[in-house]
């Protein structure tokens, strides 16, 4: 058993392929779910699970690349291992640019597949942690009052209290109080920590 956490989602329109892959991956110790089409997979929905996608490129209706794009737009970027019956270079470049972990041509050896899945799951795990941190940062950010949020942006911009007070038309003392509350609510000790946390929360620094 690989020990990496996560579910492997296999999407292939070809019954025999998905059946055999399911068999192999189960034998390799993964939790596996198979889907006959991209739509079937999308209907299942994802609840922030850790996992990766083994995805056939050529499928009728919605193909692999289109599913990749759809997932990316839905902000659930599962790591994807593409498999294809006939891999041409433009397709693989497109897939990799869009964030695919691997691109395998059928028939592939199990070693290649399992390594690719392992990499993908590892990345999924990392991304999963990253997403958790971001959520926490956003949560903390959401506890700030509008005035505190305003002060925060100025702090992130590297302004001194006196400058901030002048900009906001208030006293330097008041700004100092707000700043203390921000640091407290965001649970950071230094401005550097504050900046890093805000990055995770998606605040873009100007």
């Amino acid at each position, binding site marked *: 058993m690989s020990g990496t956490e996560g579910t492997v989602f296999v999407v292939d329109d*070809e019954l025999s392929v998905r059946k055999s892959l399911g068999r192999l991956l189960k034998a390799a110790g993964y939790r596996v779910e198979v889907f006959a089409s991209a739509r079937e997979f999308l209907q299942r929905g994802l609840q922030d699970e850790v996992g990766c996608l083994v995805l056939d490129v050529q499928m009728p209706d919605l193909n692999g690349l289109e599913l990749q794009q759809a997932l990316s737009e839905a902000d659930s970027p599962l790591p994807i291992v593409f498999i294809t019956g*006939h891999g041409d270079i433009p397709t693989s470049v497109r897939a990799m640019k869009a964030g695919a972990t691997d691109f395998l041509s059928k028939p592939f*050896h199990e070693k290649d597949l399992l390594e690719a899945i392992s990499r993908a799951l590892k990345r999924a795990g990392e991304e999963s942690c990253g997403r958790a941190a971001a959520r926490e940062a956003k949560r903390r950010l959401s506890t700030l009052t509008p005035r505190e949020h305003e002060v925060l942006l100025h702090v992130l911009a590297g302004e001194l209290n006196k400058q901030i007070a002048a900009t906001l038309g208030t006293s330097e003392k008041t700004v100092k109080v707000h700043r203390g509350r921000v640091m407290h609510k965001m649970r950071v000790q230094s401005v550097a920590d504050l900046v890093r946390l805000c990055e995770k929360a998606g605040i873009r620094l100007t």
Partner: protein
Amino acid sequence: MGARVGSGARGGALNLLLVAVSGAFTGVCSGGPRPDPAASAPLLASHAPPRVLVLCSGNSLLPTNVLFDESFREAIASGPGGPVEYCSEFLDEIRFPVRHDERMLGFLGEKYGSRQPDVIVAIGPASLGFCLRHRPQLFPEVPVVFADCGTDTSSQGESARLVTGVRSGFDGAATLRLALRLHPKTRQVFVISDSAGLGGAGWEPPGPPESQVTFHRLAKEPLLELLQELSRLPANSLAFDLSGLDGGAASPHETMQRMSASSSAPIYGGPDPLVGHGLLGTVATPMDAIGRATAALAMRVLSRENAGALPPVQKLAPAPLLDWRQMRRWGVRASQLPSGSLIRFRPRSFWRQHLLLVITTGTLFLLQSGLILALVLQSRRRRRAELEARLRREELAHMTRVATMGELTASLAHEINQPLAAILSNAQAAQRLLAAGGAGLEEFREILADIVADDQRAGEVIRRMRSLLRKGESNPVDVDVNELVDEVAGLVRGEMILQDASLALDLVSNPPLVHGDRVQLQQVLLNLIVNALDAMKDMSGGNRRVVVRTAAADARFVRVSVQDGGVGVPVDKLEQVFEPFVTTKPHGIGLGLAICRSIIQAHGGRIGLTNNADRGATFWFTLPALEKAKP
């Protein structure tokens, strides 16, 4: 009684001409009282044709008379004179000798009394003698033209007045010389004659030539003895018959036939008429020449104005005459004959006899042969051209098939890689399960079954591909168009996925079978589907849809159509797309549809296209339906 042929009958040219053809005659004529011209009966109507009386010695069956009659009449008919009334009488004095002259006198006087002949033609010595004896009483002043078959006559005198004729001859000495020349080994000559002496016919054998030829006489009578003698003639001997010259036999030709049949040696002799009845040869005046000359003379006599100016007696030269059949019998070759010889009864050669027929037949045969030859060549050329065209078509068809398959490489690889991937994964899963232990037999059985199925699927793809790539002679079989569509659909399935297109089949149930080459028909369908996909390249994915339909167009044709939703075919190209090297694709060479058309036409069908009402085009082809429905 005398028919009057007087000088007063001028302008009539109607003088009776008594032609007495007579053989050797001596002065038989006896002078008779000259009739008075004034007492003559007036001539008959001046417009009546002149009457010619031919008075023959012997009877009507004698070869002499027959031959003479023939040539004489022919000469008269073809001569310059007008129509002639031709009468012939036969004395028959040999068979009925008793009171012969009196009988004939009465008969002729009665018969020709009312209108005397204008000329009398006397044939043979007996006839001439009769004429000369009795003309004064019978036909006074009627000129006589005689035809002389033998001996010279110099009988003149009053009775011979108004007599002229043709003297001909049999040259016994020349005949003997001819015989000895043709049979140089001859030792003995047997002379046949009636009289005791060899000179019975007025002829003496020539003195023995330098050779040792001896002469013997054979008596003509009795005939049976003669025949026996003849049958015993030794080798290197000849028979020399002079008996025919006497004119004393009732039927000398029949006698000669019997003699010739019995004889063990060739028989020479005379005169001419016996040639043809057994005589090998003679030297005598030919009968036909005598007849012609006599006729000419008679005509001159008829046309003369003055009875006193009869043309002179003509003398005709003898010539060697031979019977071809006897020559063959006795081994005489024509090359041995002296020049001027006449050969009788020589069959005309095939060429001469049937020249026109031969030429016509030959020409027709040649024409026919030429025609047949031309037809054969043409047919062979056409067969060769057909074969060449077929080979070229198959070659081209194969090329375009390969090209089409080349376009499908990606999808074919896809089609094969799918089952291969499944097989590999299944096998490796099984390995893992084995290593881990604990998996049930049922699981392995399922895995193996899947592997087998996938392997078969891959094999099927390869088989289809190979059959399309194969180069070979067309192999017509009964084809179900629905199966055809299914097979091609299997081939392009991968391509459909790769190109994000869909293929829909709309197949009529139980279509009539068609007869054709499966691979070539698949090729046509494949080509049309690939074309359809190409036509939709620039469209958004959802609209790329190809519909293949089969339908029974009518009782006689099955129709297969491929409909796309592409750009359609420009109207100005509708007519041309099936022409070679016409293409709407940027990279096409324009052979695909041309090949499709030639394949369909070779199958007796038609191919065409129509632009759809909404968008895209529909290509279709028809194939002749077989009589029998699918069982």
